[in-house]
């Protein structure tokens, strides 16, 4: 017969593990690589931070467009906003810099827009991995 006290402690441990995983995911969104750093995966933390930062930096210097929720005229703009938002703090740092410098008229501006979007989407993959590591589904 299952011990009710043991079942309760197992489910409470599972609940704490789930909560910890969500906190790790939130940290990973806010600062790329932080979710991995919190779990002592230092190499991955540094690499993800540097790669997302590099994509954002290149996107800004190439005068890419950074989408905002207010400026989202259609579904594609809104998707662009969501992808940019995936970069966490980098998005909010980049907003005042990129807002006046976007150049959609030239190819380099278009490439910059893709770099900025990719930064956010790449960080979403990193967030997912951090969450999976916290849930002990990945090493």
């Amino acid at each position, binding site marked *: 017969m299952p011990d009710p006290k043991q079942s309760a402690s197992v489910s409470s441990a599972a609940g704490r593990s789930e909560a910890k995983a969500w906190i790790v995911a939130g940290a990973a969104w806010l600062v790329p690589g932080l979710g991995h750093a919190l779990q002592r995966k230092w190499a991955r933390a540094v690499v993800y931070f540097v790669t997302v930062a590099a994509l954002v930096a*290149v996107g800004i210097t190439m005068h890419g467009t950074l989408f905002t929720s207010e400026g989202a005229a259609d579904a594609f703009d809104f998707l662009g906003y969501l992808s940019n938002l995936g970069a966490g703090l980098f998005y909010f740092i980049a907003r005042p810099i990129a807002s006046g410098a976007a150049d959609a008229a030239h190819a*380099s501006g278009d490439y910059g827009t893709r770099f900025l979007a990719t930064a956010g989407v790449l960080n979403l*993959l*990193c967030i997912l991995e951090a969450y999976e590591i916290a849930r002990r589904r990945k090493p």
Partner: protein
Amino acid sequence: MKLNHFQAMLLFALVISIAFGFLSKRKLPDRVKYAVWAFFMFILIGVAIGWAMYPFSR
């Protein structure tokens, strides 16, 4: 930053390949091998798609 198309593609492929190497593999030699493979695949496929679009550009 003034990059031509090919330079932008190289830089993009380099950064993404490094990230993919760390996302996909655990040991450093495996990560490096995967990143190098991914980098060349990005370039190859990018150039191939460019040539595939060429007849429609004129």
